[in-house]
Every structure is written in C-alpha cells, then in structure tokens.
C-alpha cells in the first residue's frame, strides 16, 4: 500500500464526497475533492503535482463529467491521469463515449471494487 498516492474526487453530492474522502484517507491515500468539473479544473491548476487518479461523477451542476473530461483531454499533463467514472446511470457505456475512461464504477459503489481499482494504480 503506497502512502504517497493521491486521488482527486469530483462529486457534487456532499455525503458521497465526504464518505469517499474519509474512507480513502483511512486507506492511506491523499485526497482532494471538488463539487463539480469547473472547481476540479481550478484545483488541478493550483496543485503542485497532478493526482494519480481521478474519481469522476457524471451528473453534476455547473460543469458535468463529460464536459470536464473534454477539458481534461485538452491539457497534456492532466489528460494522462487515469480517470474512473462514478455513475448512477445503469446504461452508461464508456465505449459509446470514446472518452478513454479507465473504468466505470456503478453507484451504489462497492467498497471492495473501489479499493481494488484505487490500489491498482
């Protein structure tokens, strides 16, 4: 378990965001959190080093997951960050989007699945 890995959580729902932060912190990850895509982009610009992983919600106000992903892919450095989608939409297929997401985690998220994905980086 590497203690130097950092994860950026982009999720509008406060309780999900907080729960993910709590659990991942307790698992030894550094976490940053943003409540929408716009906030996340601002945060990414401010961070001295890019996170190792992004957990991205899709349905968000201001800037949703798709819009964030498009912006993300415009910037070389952050485009490289593996991004995992958190989706409540059962019909979400990442193949259809052709946006190169690493994986999709369906809500409600399974803890073991989440941890295996996060630990694989």
């Amino acid at each position, binding site marked *: 378990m590497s203690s130097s890995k950092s994860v950026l959580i982009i999720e509008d729902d406060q309780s999900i965001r907080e729960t993910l932060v709590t659990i991942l912190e307790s698992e030894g990850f550094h976490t940053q959190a943003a409540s929408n895509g716009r906030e996340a982009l601002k945060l990414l610009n401010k961070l001295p080093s890019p996170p190792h992983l992004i957990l991205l919600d899709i349905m968000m*106000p201001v800037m949703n997951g798709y819009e964030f992903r498009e912006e993300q892919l415009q910037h070389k450095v952050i485009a490289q960050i593996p991004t995992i989608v958190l989706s409540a939409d059962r019909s979400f297929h990442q193949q259809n989007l052709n946006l190169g997401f690493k994986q999709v985690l369906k809500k409600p998220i399974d803890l073991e699945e989440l941890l295996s994905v996060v630990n694989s980086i």
Partner: protein
Amino acid sequence: MAEPFELTSSFTKRLRHILIIIAGFFVIGVVSSYYSSLGFLNGLQQISSANRILNLSTLALESLDSTDQTLDKLLTGGNFKNVQFYFHQSAKITEQQLQDAIILAENFPEARKQLVQATEALHEYTFSIEKIFQTLAIRPEKIATEEIKSDLLVAHEFSADARETLRMSQITLKENSDQLFSSIYEGRFYPLIVASILSIFFFSFVIIVGFSIARRLSHALQNLGDATSAVGQGNLDFEAPILEHDEFGKLTFEFNGMVNSLKEKQQSLNLAMDRVLRLQHITSSFSEALVPDQVFEVIFQEAFETLGVNSGAVGLVDETGEYVELQRIQGYTEAYEETWKRFSLSLRAPMNEAIVTGKPVFLRNNEETKNFCPKVFEVLIKSGIQSTCAIPLLVEGKAVGSIAFSFSSPKEFAREERDFVITMVNQCSQALHRAQLYEAARDAIKVRDEFLSIASHELRTPLTPLKLQLQNLSRQVRKGNLSAMPTEQIMKAVESSDRQVNRLTSLIDDLLDVSRISAGKLTLNRESFNLAEMIEEIVGHYTHQLKENNSKVKVDVDSSLVGHLDKVRIEQVFINLLTNAAKYAPGKTIHVSLTRAGKFASLTVRDEGQGISSENQKRIFERFERVKDRDNVGGLGLGLYISRQIVEAHEGFIRVESTPGKGAAFIVELPLNEANL
C-alpha cells in the same frame, strides 16, 4: 355553346316550295289536259252530229223518194185517200227528220242554211201536193188526169229541189266533217304533245328533287348517326359538322350542344373525382405527419400544387390568446415575412377574422380586400395578392389558429372550391390536433423518462455513502480494526448512514404522494390547530439543518389564526417551502410571515436568492419540474407539485411572486377556521 345557331335556310320551307312547284305543274298539266281533251271530245261530238245529220238527210231523201213513188199512184188511179194518208205520214216523218237535222246542224251554219232551204222546198212540195189532194177531194174523177199529172210534175220539181238542196247540204256536211276531223287530228294533237312533254319534264323534276331530298336526308342522318355512335363509344370530343344552316343543321347543333354539356358534366365529375382522390391523398399524407410543421408542410404542398395558391400563411393563437404567431409562411415578400411573424389578434385581417368568428373568409378581389381590411390591404398588394381566403383551424370546436391562402389574380371561389379548401383545412385541423396530442404525449413520455432518470439518480445517490459506510464498518469488523477506530469516526459513519436513510425515506414519501395524487387518493385528516404555533415548531425543529446552509430565518406571525386543516400535510408544505428557500438561497435570510387575508390565512416564505424567471414561475408547480440550470441543487422536482396539490385539496391557493435577482416569495392561502371569522 356560346354562339346561338343562326337558321339561314329552312329545309321544310324548301320542301314546301318544291311541293308548291310540283302542285303548280300538276294543276297546269291537269288543266291543259282537260282543255285539250275537251276540244278533242267536242270535235268528235260534232263529227258524230254531222254523221247523224247525214243519216237523217239520207233518210229524208229516201222518204222523199218513196213519197214520190206513192204519189205516182195518183197517176195510175187508185184510192187517193190512202195515198193522201201515206203522204201525210211520210211528209210528216221527212219534215221531222229535217227539223232534227237542223237542230243538230247548229254548229254547221252552211249546212243548216241548206237544210232550211230543203225544208222550205219540202213545204212548197207539200203545199202543192195538198192542193192536188184538195182538188181531188172535190173532184175525185180528175184522178189520173193530165191536169193532175201536170200539177204533180210541178210538185215533183219542188221535191227535186228539196232533194238537190239536201244532197248539197250532205256535201257541205261531209266537207265540214272532214275539215273537223283533220282539225281534231292536227290542231288538237300539239297540245297533247306539249302536255306529254310537260309531264315528262314534271316527272323528271319530281324524281330529281325527290332523289336530292332523299340524298340530303340520308346525308344528314348519316352525319348524326356517325356522331351518335362516336359519342356512344365515349368520344365526347367528337363534333358533328354542320352541313347547312337548316333544320338538320339545327339538330346537329343541338346535338353538339348536348354532347358538350355532357362533356362539361363529365369534366366536373372528373374534377370532383380528382378532388376526392386529392383529399384521400392529403388524408394519408396527414396521417404520416407527426409534428405540426409536417402537417403544415403537407397542406402547403397540396395548396400550392392543386389550388394554384401563390402565397400562404398559417398562424396559431399564442398562450396569451391575444397574438397570432405565424408557423409557416411562403410566397410573400421578405419584408412581409419578417414583419408578420407575430401580430395582434385585434388587427383587422383575414386570418384574424377567421380565428375570431370561427368561419372562413373569402375575399375575391382587391376591392373586397380593401373594404375588408384597409390597413393590411397595402401590404397584401405589395406581395402581388389579388384574392385571399382564410380558414379557421378548429380543434374540438375552438379556433386555435387559421390558414390563409392568397392568389395573384381575382378568384370567384365557386362553391366546390370553397368546400374543397374548407375540407382540406378541416383535415389539417384534425391532423394538427393529432400532432399536438402526439407531441404532448411524446413530451409527457420524455418528462417521465427524464423523471425516471432523475429518480434513479436521486435514489442511488444516498445509497452510495450508505453502502460505502456499511461495507467499511463491516470491513473494519472483519479485520478486527473496529475497536481501534475512534468512537467519533464510528458515530460519524452511523449518523451519516442515518441521514441517508432519512433522505431515502423522504424521496420514497414524495413518490408515494405523487402516486396517491395521481390516483386521486389524497385524503385529508382535518383538525383545528394554531398555524403560528405550527410555524414556530417547524422552524425550531429545522434550525440545525438550516444552519448547515448558513440560512437565517425571520418569523413574523399572527398568532391568532386557527385552521381546520390536515396538520401533517400543511407542515409538509411549509417544510418544503422552507427547505427550498434554504436550498436555493443559501447563506441568506428567509422571511416567514403569517397574516390574515379575509377568510384566508396568508403564509409567505420569502427568500433573498436569485429569484425565478417568469418562464420558470409557470413551470415549477408542475409535476417533475424544478428550476433548471441551478447550481448544486438536486431533488426530484416534486415538492412544489405536491405542495400545490395539498393546498388545492384544502381549497386554498399557492403562488409565487418573484423578480429575477431579487428573491422569490411563495404565498400559500389557506381557509381559516370558522371560529376565526
């Protein structure tokens, strides 16, 4: 047929003339034959009279001879009385014969004169013989004496004289008779020849004329026969030639007229058939049109192709009911199309008239248009319009809009044309209604799908932390780490889970409420309670939660108001308004007030947020709707819908007053308990 037939010659008149000529010829022939045969017969009669006269005179001569012989007995002696008797008889007969001959010789003057002379000689003879008989009567002894003999000789001279004259008259008569015969034979023969020639000429004429009439008749009948069989075979374009301007010509002319009117009837029948087929075609085209734009496209295409429309517009009355919005416009000037996208229903224009009266408007020419709408007329003229019709679009008996078709020339709008265009537009109305229903249904399905998507998202959202927290606790227990975990962290996890369960419960309650309302099963358990107390209680209860949003609440209530209402439901409405205000205007003050407004208690929840646009104000009380594009706000969008249903079930009112940028105020008016009044 436009031109009347001019009867310049008459077959019957000509036939009559021919018949008159034939009759004239006939009369002339008959008269000439009569007269020529009359002369002929007269001549024959005269010849026969001459023959009879000749016979009579021959008889007279014979009887004179026999008288002479008888008288000779007087010379030889004998009974003179017997001679006398015989003489009297014989002389009487002779005279009678001569008298007859004279009467007969009326036409033979010379012979008659001779016969008269002969008669006179006979009288002389008779007279002299009578003298002899008188002498002998006195002196019978003188018979056969010389004296008698000489007397007798004298008398015989008279008889010889008579005989001579008679013979001469016979000669004369024979000559006359011969003359007469030759005159009959020669003189009366030429008229007969002339009459015969005339007859031949006459008959030839009759034959030629008859033949020509027959030819003329057969030609005319053949002509009509050809025409009849052509028409019988369905060739209505056949026109029989008019050979002459007579009765047959007239008959042909009338026949052609009849065929023409038949053709016109057939043409109008074909036209009607064509229209029926067109309508069928339109109906099927309409049935395929699922959105109003497609419906209008179908009718425009038909109208421009079939009716020869030069420009058309279709407008629908907008939500305010005061303006007409053009949905489709074609064939007008660009400026017109720009200016007339939306116009007031109060303007006098054909389309508006059709909408207001619900009846079609037909303006046949510029004059009618100018009289009808002087203002719009100028604009129409600029688009080259000369005649216009406007038909209302009637949906369930109500004019929801109208269609106008214009033409670049004056148009009579015959009854069939009016019926056709009205039927077409009525079909269009039905299709429009269908399309609108279809659109509404599709929108409803879209709203439902969106709702299901939102509902599924909203339901899954609290499940995610709940599941994570529980799995995390279970994982820690499994790893034996639970006892090492700080109590605070465990409490936080459990409290968070509890909140998620409450959130889910609330969502499920909302869904159940909607389902109850939809099924009409929202029941009220009324009780009398003080509204101010209820407000204070709820505000107190929610203070903690409101603090999370940094919201402050200012309450200003009339504590005397009591309502006989379903307390739980009214609380639900108030909580909804309060949490909405906190949600949409975080960090601001929420003003809650309760005042009396006549027979109602007026409860107002006012925030200091961004306010709600007028468009959103209409929508937010509908099912599955919420103010869109608002940051960081989730939810099913059912709260205000449920609130409105609850308030209306209490025969109260709920409304929103808001100026964008200056906050929003939700006002609920609820009937007061009668004791308050």
